[in-house]
């Protein structure tokens, strides 16, 4: 019996939802086991970094890497898995474009640590903060060091494929697994390197069942401030800043279909250089006003424009971070 | 209830007391509520602006700053005096039109721990509130004694409809708000082409002869059109035409007798109030004959007392002395 191809999955700076999504493929997970030899998957099985380090370069066929690169441990593993893998997939929004953890790029590291260790969530009267190395009798202890900003995988290592989504839809994961199995069996070809996989080729509106017209908005409102929301009509047309027009399809318009606005987890459409720019232009195109005062008044309805247009994409955007965050030495 | 901040202005406490009294008398039937701006100061009238620019605007802006601080659920400041209304509106407008002025004025205000962001208040005149917020319908409903048969000319004066930074009035030259309101009270309103001509303003003080001519034009045209009285919205107009009419008559050798009342006084009458509580009778050119036409009896007020024996002129306040003022302040 020929050895099964090797499979790895790793979880860097992310929430873990991607791992759940893989499990959510139900029985398809059995196909993974049947067709692959899972060599490294910390959340599912015990494994040591040194085991991976010992592997031959390129010996893992497929690595699904989820999470962004926030500290030196993430970076080390990214480089290591790149070295050991034939196909490295940036799996999920965090690895592809930074996702929610990427929003921390709006704040300098100092502020982040301060918020985490010494604000309302943490009672820390002595202002004790973690140190990255500490001497104990047994020797020097290290914890990972935070980077200035969170980076998507591609900004650290060469990536073969991207699979966005927060998390990627299970049916899309299943399809990708099927594809790889077929490729292994010689029944299919791999898409060109650098492709975004497990997605549609348009944006969310393409799959959205809501009716739409030419849109002219006199005010933007948060969805909770509208009662009732028309269940049949395009949300943007109702003044709700829906990210659907600029967000890659593939999720079957899950959120707008369920009555909530798209928040953009599938990232930009094919060939788009900056996701936020697309949303800026989408929202501004539907504003029905001509004087700066009126326009500004309407824009006041989007209280956090930066968060709105870069919710998932900040770390992958052209500017990548807040200037203050960059400046920290 | 309609709530507003009130900027009464200096004359409402003295020469235009009747305006204030009659305003108080119509508040209730029209369901209006005014909160006076606490510790407001003089707007500088037309004088301060000619001396110093930034102090003049700072003087006005202190009132705006106080008003914006004073929370009573409204951002509308109402001024019954046209000159005050114009000054407040003008300061608000120019602080926006020329931001450097706004910055400097705020720097000055900061010396008194105040600040004002131009454009945050609506400055409006009393009649604007009555016609456009309360509405003629409601006013008509409150009338119990229509002024039918009273021939009046509506006199808007100049500082109200002009320059009209916020486009609040129907016209610069012949606004009809006062005409409409008086008609709603049932009065016989005569078209008055001079409705926004000048009463002379401060010229009664600095160039009386110039002022007398302006007063003559107004009174003579009103008289020529058969008016029994003029109706005004401005303390300065009332003062000039009322208090200086006699002098004007002397100057030109004419014998006009043209009483001038505040529109609020006529509203009070129409709403059935007692002339006494409306300050009717304190005008120097008596409205007695005019009001007799509609059966209103004007109360007798004290006639001018006999001149003092010694020909010493009017009593003079002592001249302002800084040291004394400080002493007074210590008390």
């Amino acid at each position, binding site marked *: 019996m020929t050895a099964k191809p090797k499979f790895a999955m790793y979880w860097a700076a992310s929430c873990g939802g991607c791992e759940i999504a893989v499990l959510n493929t139900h029985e398809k997970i059995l196909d993974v086991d049947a067709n692959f030899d899972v060599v490294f998957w910390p959340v599912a099985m015990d494994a040591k970094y040194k085991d991976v380090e010992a592997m031959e370069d390129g010996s893992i066929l497929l690595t699904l890497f989820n999470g962004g690169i926030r500290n030196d441990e993430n970076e080390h593993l990214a480089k290591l898995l790149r070295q050991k893998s034939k196909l490295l997939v940036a799996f999920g929004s965090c690895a592809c474009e930074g996702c929610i953890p990427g929003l921390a790029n709006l704040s300098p590291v100092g502020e982040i640590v301060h918020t985490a260790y010494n604000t309302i969530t943490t009672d820390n009267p002595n202002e*004790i903060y973690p140190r990255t190395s500490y001497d104990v009798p047994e020797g020097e202890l290290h914890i990972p060091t935070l980077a*200035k900003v969170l980076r998507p995988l591609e900004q650290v290592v060469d990536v073969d494929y991207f699979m966005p989504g927060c998390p990627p839809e299970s049916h899309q994961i299943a399809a990708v697994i099927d594809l790889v199995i077929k490729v292994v069996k010689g029944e299919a070809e791999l898409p060109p390197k650098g492709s975004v996989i497990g997605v549609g080729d348009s944006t969310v509106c393409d799959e959205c069942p809501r009716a739409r017209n030419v849109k002219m908005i006199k005010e933007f409102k948060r969805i909770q401030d509208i009662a009732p929301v028309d269940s049949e009509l395009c949300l943007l047309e109702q003044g709700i800043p829906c990210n659907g027009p600029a967000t890659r399809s593939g999720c079957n318009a899950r959120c707008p279909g369920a009555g909530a606005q798209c928040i953009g987890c599938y990232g930009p459409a094919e060939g788009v250089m900056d996701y936020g720019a697309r949303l800026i232009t989408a929202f501004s195109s539907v504003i029905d006003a001509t004087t700066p005062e009126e326009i500004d008044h309407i824009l006041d309805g989007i209280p956090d424009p930066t968060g709105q247009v870069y919710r998932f994409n900040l770390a992958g955007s052209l500017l990548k971070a*807040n200037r203050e965050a960059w*400046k920290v030495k | 209830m309609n709530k507003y901040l009130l900027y009464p202005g200096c004359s409402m406490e003295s020469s235009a007391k009747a305006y204030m009294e009659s305003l108080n008398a119509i508040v209730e039937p029209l369901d209006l509520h005014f909160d006076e701006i606490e510790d407001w100061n003089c707007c500088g009238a037309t004088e301060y602006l000619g001396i110093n620019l930034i102090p003049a605007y700072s003087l006005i802006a202190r009132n705006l700053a106080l008003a914006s601080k004073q929370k009573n659920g409204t951002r509308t400041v109402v001024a019954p005096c046209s000159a005050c209304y114009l000054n407040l509106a003008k300061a608000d407008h120019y602080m926006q039109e020329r931001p450097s002025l706004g910055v400097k004025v705020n720097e000055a205000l900061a010396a008194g721990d105040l600040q004002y962001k131009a454009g945050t208040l609506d400055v409006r005149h009393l009649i604007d509130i009555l016609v456009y917020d309360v509405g003629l319908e409601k006013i008509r409903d409150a009338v119990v004694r229509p002024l039918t048969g009273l021939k009046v000319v509506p006199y808007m004066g100049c500082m109200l409809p002009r320059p009209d930074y916020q486009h609040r009035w129907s016209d610069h030259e012949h606004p009809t708000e006062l005409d409409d309101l008086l008609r709603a009270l049932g009065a016989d309103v005569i078209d008055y082409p001079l409705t926004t001509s000048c009463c002379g303003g401060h010229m009664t003080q600095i160039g009386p002869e110039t002022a007398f001519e302006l007063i003559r034009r107004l009174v003579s045209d009103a008289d020529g059109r058969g008016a029994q009285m003029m109706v005004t919205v401005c303390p300065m107009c009332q003062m000039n035409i009322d208090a200086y009419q006699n002098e004007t008559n002397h100057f030109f050798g004419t014998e006009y007798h043209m009483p001038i009342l505040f529109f609020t006084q006529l509203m009070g009458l129409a709403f059935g109030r007692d002339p006494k509580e409306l300050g009717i009778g304190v005008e120097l050119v008596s409205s007695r004959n005019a009001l007799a036409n509609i059966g209103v009896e004007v109360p007798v007020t004290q006639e001018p007392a006999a001149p003092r024996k010694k020909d010493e002129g009017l009593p003079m306040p002592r001249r302002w002395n800084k040291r004394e003022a400080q002493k007074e302040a210590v008390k």
Partner: protein
Amino acid sequence: MTDQFEPTIIGFTCNWCSYRASDLAGTARMKYAPNVKLIRLMCSGRLDPTFVLRALSSGADGVMITGCHPGECHYIEQNYKALRRFLLLRRVLNGLGIEPERVKLVWASAAEGARFAAETTAFVEEIRKLGPLNWGKADDGPQATDHDQPSFAHGKEMEVPA
């Protein structure tokens, strides 16, 4: 030469008004600051916010967007669309810690060479006051925070339980 900071600015013009204004400034030999390098578009409505972001991330310290006056657009009303985008873009930039004044919108008709020149010089001075944006350098990628020189966050001693 003084050591004063010379900003690098990318300017976008429309083909019909503002580019012609810059042509006119040229034919009239008006002198203005040399820091702005122009890109001609057909219309200010063509301005994709991506262009601004790209310029700022590639080393520009400011971006000047120019077009026909409102109501005079060659394409009838497309400059209003540029205005709407510009106003939202500035808000987003502000959230990213970029002074919104680094991106400016100037209307200049084909007859306003003098205005074009004056606005250009004024903008260069405004950016000079703001100082370099330095985004290009940041693009080199972040370095992990140094172990030996802990930042504020790592600065305090960690207390070890006894």
